């Protein structure tokens, strides 16, 4: 991913969204742009339609929980199949009410990706057609992939300290 491709992408974003970009860095051959939280969907739609960039393939969309800064990071990875360029957009949401507008209007693939992110992290996607848990049991109250919840199954009683000789 040569320099001028990066410049071009950053300019297309700067042109329309002045102060949006917080940081851009090259992480192992992947251009990562960290943006403010508010206008993420407009930026993606802009990159989707703009003739220079045309990122029309959503590779993946997921969240990361940062307990120390008590934030939830959202990562969008886009891919332009024609010019074979990939970029990664990151935003950080406060953990109290992590809400972000939905992307299902632009990409039909985002439907289940967002449901899975809601299921794991509790990120609320405004305007999502049917935001329900997809992988876990419907009546589960906790968001399991947050760091404060244990991995093990709490019902199990035989894997206690006695078994490990503690």
């Amino acid at each position, binding site marked *: 991913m040569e320099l001028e491709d990066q410049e071009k992408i950053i300019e297309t974003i700067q042109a329309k969204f002045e102060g949006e970009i917080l940081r851009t860095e090259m*992480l*192992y051959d*992947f251009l*990562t742009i960290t943006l403010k939280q508010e206008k993420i969907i407009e930026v993606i739609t802009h990159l989707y339609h703009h003739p220079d960039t045309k990122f*029309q*393939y*959503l*590779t*993946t969309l*997921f969240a*990361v*929980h940062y307990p120390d800064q008590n934030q939830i990071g959202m*990562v969008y*990875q886009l891919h332009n*199949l024609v010019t*074979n360029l990939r970029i*990664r957009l990151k935003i950080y949401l406060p953990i109290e009410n992590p809400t972000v507008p939905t992307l299902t209007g632009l*990409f*039909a*693939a985002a*439907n*289940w*990706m967002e449901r*899975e992110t809601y299921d*794991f992290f509790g990120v609320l996607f405004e305007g999502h057609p049917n935001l329900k*848990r*997809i*992988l*876990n*049991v419907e009546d589960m109250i906790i968001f*399991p*992939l947050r760091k404060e919840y244990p*991995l093990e199954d709490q019902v199990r009683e035989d894997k206690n300290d006695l078994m490990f000789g503690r």
Partner: protein
Amino acid sequence: MEVKQPATDQFYQPREKQYTYLNLGPTHPATHGIFQNVLKMDGEIIVEATPTIGYIHRAFEKLAERRPFYQITPITDRMNYCSAPINNFGWHMTVEKLLGVEIPKRVQYLRVIIMELARITDHLVCNAVIGVDTGALTGFVYMFQQRELVYEIYEEICGARLTSNIGRIGGFEREWSPKTWEKIHRFLKEFPLVLKEFEDLLNRNRIFMDRTIGCGGITAERALNYSFSGVNLRAAGVDYDVRVAKPYSSYEDFEFVIPVGKNGDVYDRFMVRQEEMWQSLSIIRQAIEKMPEGPFHAKVPDFYLPPKEEVYNNMEALIYHFKIVMGETDIPKGEVYHCVEGGNGELGFYLISDGGRTPFRLHMRRPCFIYYQAYPEMIKGSMLSDAILTMSSMNVIAGELDA
């Protein structure tokens, strides 16, 4: 003159249309996996399908945050268990990219051979299952026999048949035994005959073509919008293949053709998978011819158990041995995404490590999970038997669907 309605009319009030609800549920023999669809049907035609998945959700991503790096390999090969080695090597390459390790050419070629063998077994099972769903049961029994030969090759290399846990971060555990090469050559000699026979059985078969052409199709635009990847996208007409778009493990040294379909229906997917099996066979032959000499493992001491005699008489090897076994090897901080062309599509690993001994966050881009969303749209208006055929042609593996 007002026409008097016949007396019976008041009995016949037009009632709103009633539909039957059929449960293509988790324990259904035709679903070849554990996902459930409530089908709203009008007679035989499917009006609407609401899928429910998550019946074997095993929390891979949470589990990966608790295990040291080389212990995550056994999780990855339980994701797409029809082609387990591709997941393993995809994971190993992600960690190697994070560490910045330079992999010797010989290891890359050995990995290409194993990945192509795994791709053959994945496509082989899927095409045989398409045969079963259209009624050609014998094809499945013969094709599955070939899968046993590939199981034996895996056993020679890594001891396990299905969930292979093959290789290490940086290469292979030991050099391949001559028996392995003998079995690979035997497979290369026997498999093309059976594949040719299977092809003649189904390719130009009148019944098969009538059943599969035009059934469960999807256009290229909708496929791209649903982020399809792999065989289902190529069958729809888009020639996107990670091995060519972003070559890894020296795939650029081999010439192979990417088969591309036209209208993305079951027949195109079947033909793309058949052609890809022939291409994989030719890649394996090229890899065997051009196999370079060299070590079977990169210089990554803190991930590769040193040989026993070194452990006994040299302190450093002993420390490495101890740290590996106790899982205390730390990984530098970093955030990396690496994708591999799996059996079903672009299989990506997004690894965030905070310098500890276990990953801070590991997200797996699972192609099955992403393209199975389009299933209700693909079967709307088709018959029930076509819906089952579409599901088996998409090769949805439940392990990868709900990781």
